[in-house]
């Protein structure tokens, strides 16, 4: 089941720049490319290539641009499915851990200086940042399919 125009507008107000017909045409293309609406995650998801498209950037796509984008991703998948699946798995771990790391960073940022000397507070923030980039390079960059 696809989301209504109003539902999409609530998720991404920038879609107002496009008429309901244009949005419907884009949704037709998205569905033709194998994506279906995932109500629990509020995004389009293609289970064959384990790829989700959120509504945030949807206003930037025309049906043609979306098809081009999908074809590029699909070619990456066809060229090396194992590497692609490894990358998709890495991305899913990354997307689960990123909010936790950022929340930890913000909690430390707002409260750390109350219990730690400033020097150690800044060091603890630095450690979280290093952990962030280490995880990004390990789960995202290192698993990315190469051309």
């Amino acid at each position, binding site marked *: 089941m696809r989301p209504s125009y109003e539902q999409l507008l609530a998720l991404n107000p*920038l879609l107002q720049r496009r008429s309901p017909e244009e949005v419907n045409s884009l949704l037709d293309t998205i569905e033709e490319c194998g994506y279906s609406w995932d109500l629990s995650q509020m995004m389009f998801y293609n289970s064959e290539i384990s790829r989700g498209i959120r509504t*945030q950037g949807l206003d930037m796509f025309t049906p043609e641009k979306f098809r081009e984008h999908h074809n590029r991703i699909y070619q990456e998948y066809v060229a090396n499915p194992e590497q692609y699946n490894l990358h998709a798995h890495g991305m899913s771990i990354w997307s689960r851990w990123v909010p936790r790391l950022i929340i930890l960073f913000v909690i430390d940022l707002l409260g750390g200086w109350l219990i730690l000397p400033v020097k150690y507070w800044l060091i603890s923030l630095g450690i979280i940042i290093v952990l962030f980039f280490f995880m990004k390079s390990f789960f995202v960059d290192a698993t990315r399919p190469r051309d």
Partner: protein
Amino acid sequence: MHIISFIVAGLIFAYWLFGISQPRYNRPMIFWKPTGIYGILLAAAFFAFVGYLLSK
């Protein structure tokens, strides 16, 4: 005062971390251009520098 500057810098930086952690097409629009990405980073660096100066 320097703590407030560090916190502002940290919050801007946390937003930057959030932005770059998203897949390209899911990023907030400000992250779609290098000027946005580097602009946010520069803003965070500016507040961190002010915090450093105030702490001396």
